[in-house]
């Protein structure tokens, strides 16, 4: 693939490991961005972001306009959802969602009326003219929050949370690396909308009082780099630096891109903000610009439709909730062998073509038979160490594998299992075709479950002990009551006794005499018996 000869404007550091899989990007980054006709129904997954499920605020039968809020945040760690088109809510029910588990979850189903009528939009007035101080931080954050903006790079992390920390941030990194094979939506977005992306980046930088901006991009996107350079000149933005990194998967991983651009590593257990860095994806910048300048909520995104079974590969603006089968049909594609959401390295296979696309969907691969390496049988590990050479986190993947497969989770943790970013580079180079990442996911989720179980058990133990203690206390109190009652009785009896002391003494004397006589008598009887 063509490489850009643009010289990076900042020094680029090395990252360990990494791989060079076939890129397959030319299939989809040639055509202009297009649209496809609306689907018959849109299935909007309420769990379409990291965090809590959104709460529906519409009812079945309601008419909604495009951009109208249909589900609200459940707490701060969640996101608003908006109607991707105008139409009628025909169901709020469990549907299969875009998740590797193939589980069902609550979805709002909208039947489009075909008009695609926007609701009234509320852009931030006179955005361009405002400087950092005039733009109220709260106002921008509120707008980003209300327009349902989440990270579009893949994790769908609610953007307002990521932007919340404001102190000691000195650099904004725009992630345009897009290192996954097949995926070209960021590339294409920059080619056609670089100015909007940079304006979005400017807005974010204003949140931190005009911090430095670095755009990190792989050198396999010469057109996008040109477009960025041009947009920067047109907009007269001089705080933006273009950092062109060599194409190597996974340079677009958050931690890896930070290492490439700054030479620093995000310390274990810390976040990029701890280094004074904040990173956003180009798609997110675009969405933030649209939300603030045009007041548009996040209702659609650019999705790469590609794969050998896709007849019209390219990038399309797709409303959220559009079912995959509609995309397959609309691109005139032949029945694909497998459907992958995301890229071939970190994406996941879709359990059904009925699921709707979500905010995280950057790519749908419609694969032909034999296109993907999924039917290669696993052989024993030969400890060749290729995985170690490929690991961008400098882990020992084959040791992690040994421990994970033997359920020795403490050992796996000792080998820093949780520093694995699941990029799949190890499994890609493995000559034995062992699904390594699957083992790591298994080990991680088991460890997490064990921790939850442990906490639960701890709580149960505490509850049990509390109950025991309560029972003990009740028993003690009861005993105490009895004791007191008994003492009271004794006291009463004792007092009653004092009054009759003389009488008692006489009686006692009489009793002694009587006992003496009895004893005398029994002795006589015995003597008679012996005779």
């Amino acid at each position, binding site marked *: 693939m063509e490489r850009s000869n643009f010289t990076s404007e900042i020094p680029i550091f090395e990252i360990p490991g990494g791989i060079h899989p076939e890129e397959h990007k030319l299939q989809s980054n040639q055509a202009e961005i297009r649209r496809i006709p609306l689907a018959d129904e849109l299935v909007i997954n309420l769990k379409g972001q990291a965090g809590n499920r959104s709460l529906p605020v519409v009812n079945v039968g309601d008419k909604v306009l495009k951009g109208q809020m249909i589900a609200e945040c459940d707490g701060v760690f969640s996101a608003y959802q908006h109607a991707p088109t105008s139409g009628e809510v025909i169901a709020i029910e469990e549907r299969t969602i875009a998740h590797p588990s193939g589980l069902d979850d609550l979805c709002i189903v909208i039947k489009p009326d075909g008009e695609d009528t926007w609701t009234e939009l509320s852009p931030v007035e006179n955005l361009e003219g405002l400087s950092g101080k005039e733009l109220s931080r709260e106002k921008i954050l509120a707008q980003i929050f209300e327009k349902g903006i989440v990270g579009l790079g893949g994790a769908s992390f609610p953007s307002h949370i990521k932007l919340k920390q404001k102190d000691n941030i000195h650099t904004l990194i725009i992630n345009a690396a897009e290192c996954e094979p097949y995926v070209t939506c960021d590339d294409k977005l920059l080619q056609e909308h670089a100015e909007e992306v940079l304006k979005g980046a400017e807005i974010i930088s204003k949140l931190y009082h005009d911090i430095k901006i670095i755009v990190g991009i792989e050198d396999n996107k010469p057109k996008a780099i040109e477009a960025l350079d041009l947009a920067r000149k047109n907009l007269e933005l001089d705080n933006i630096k273009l950092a062109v990194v060599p194409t190597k998967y996974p340079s677009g991983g958050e931690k890896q891109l930070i290492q490439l651009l700054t030479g620093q590593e995000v*310390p274990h257990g810390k976040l990029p903000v701890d280094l004074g860095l904040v990173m956003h994806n180009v798609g997110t910048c675009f969405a933030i610009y649209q939300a603030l300048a045009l007041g548009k909520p996040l209702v659609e995104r650019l999705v790469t439709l590609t794969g050998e079974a896709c007849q019209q590969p390219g990038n399309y603006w797709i409303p959220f909730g559009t079912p995959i089968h509609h995309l397959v049909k609309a691109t005139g594609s032949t029945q694909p062998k497998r459907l992958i959401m995301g890229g071939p390295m970190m994406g996941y296979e879709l359990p059904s073509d009925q699921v709707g696309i979500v905010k995280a969907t950057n790519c749908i691969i419609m694969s032909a038979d034999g296109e993907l390496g999924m039917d290669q049988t696993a052989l024993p590990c030969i*400890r060749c*160490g290729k995985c170690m050479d490929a690991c961008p986190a400098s882990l020992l993947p084959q040791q992690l594998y*040994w421990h994970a*497969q033997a359920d020795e989770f403490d050992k796996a943790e000792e080998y820093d299992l949780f520093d694995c970013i699941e990029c799949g580079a190890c499994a890609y180079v493995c000559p034995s*075709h062992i699904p390594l*990442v699957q083992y790591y996911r298994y080990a991680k989720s088991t460890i997490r479950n064990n921790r939850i179980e442990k906490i639960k058990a701890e709580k149960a133990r505490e509850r049990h002990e509390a109950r025991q203690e309560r029972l003990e206390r009740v028993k003690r109190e009861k005993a105490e009551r009895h004791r007191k009652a008994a003492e009271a009785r004794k006291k009463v009896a004792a007092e009653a006794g004092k009054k009759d002391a003389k009488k008692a003494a006489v009686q006692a004397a009489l009793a002694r005499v009587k006992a003496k006589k009895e004893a005398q008598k029994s002795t006589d009887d015995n003597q008679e018996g012996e005779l």
Partner: protein
Amino acid sequence: MSILSSPFAKKPNSVTQMMLWVVIATLPGLFALLYFFGYGVLINLIIACSVALLTEAFILKIRKRPIAPILWDGSAFVTAWLLALALPPLLPWWMTVLGTSFAIVFAKHVYGGLGNNIFNPAMVGYVLLLISFPLEMTTWLPPQELAANPVGFIETIAIIFTGAASDPTTVDSLKQGVDGFTMATPLDHVKTELAQGYRIPEAESAAIITGLSGVGWQWVNLGFLAGGLVLLFKRIIGWQIPIAVLLGMGLVSLPLFFANSDHYLFPMFHGFAGATMLGAFFIATDPVTASTTPKGRWIFGLGIGVITVLIRTFGGYPDAIAFAVLLMNMTVPMIDYYTKPRVYGHKANKGHGTKKGHDEKVHVIKAKGAN
């Protein structure tokens, strides 16, 4: 349709492919062996490989494992191939059979099969034969250029399989080690001469010593070096281990040579004599039994180089690659444990990579067995 986990991208490597490349890369060295030492090398290869495949299939059947996919991975074939390359050309057939089957059964399957063995199977087979049959295992034919009585193809077969040849005197001469029929390898020759009180320059005046090391042997080693470079270039093997082996040999042999060149060989001689190049590029790099951490690979390779020269110089055997490899194999679990690389985001190496301390190290011996 089963749901699979990422990555889905087509995987470029396979074990079979790696093993195939190892075999291909031995060809230059193999041709040199064939040219200088005759058809026996080829017959050894055929016997060893057939026995290895049969033994592997038999054991897999007993262990109730799938036979075809595991045979197809080529590891048993490569074990036999490398073992046969190290054997003398006229070794009786049953010794080859014994060494190969012992390697497959005891060095590999007893430990749990491919990937689980601690010791390099080819070297276990080799050492078994070497210490059981030291005479036969050190009886090499003279290189073709020096052979007064070259042994023909039919005769080779007859000697290997029956111990008798068309001309009975050939066998007798072989058995008695008569000059002209057999000849010591350069390393063997030097060792014998030194033991008899000669000095290195005197020992080097023999016909067998020439150029980098000895007649024929230098070409065999150059052949394996060339093949090894192909493996490096194809990234089938890492570069650290072979370089470390050669460096380790130099680290010991160079100071010795400078201290007393009458008694100690020039490092270059060590490098191109005996099984050096075969060992450095093909034996020590066996993925299963070598160290797998970046630093560990260095330590492992250096260890092999150092031990080889020490045994060659001060030990009772002329060559020592096999011993050195097996000795270092033993240390691999420990090397790997103490050379964990620093993980992304972690401060300087956290010592032994454990949060819990030393008492854990006993348990980390590769976590084998579950397979």
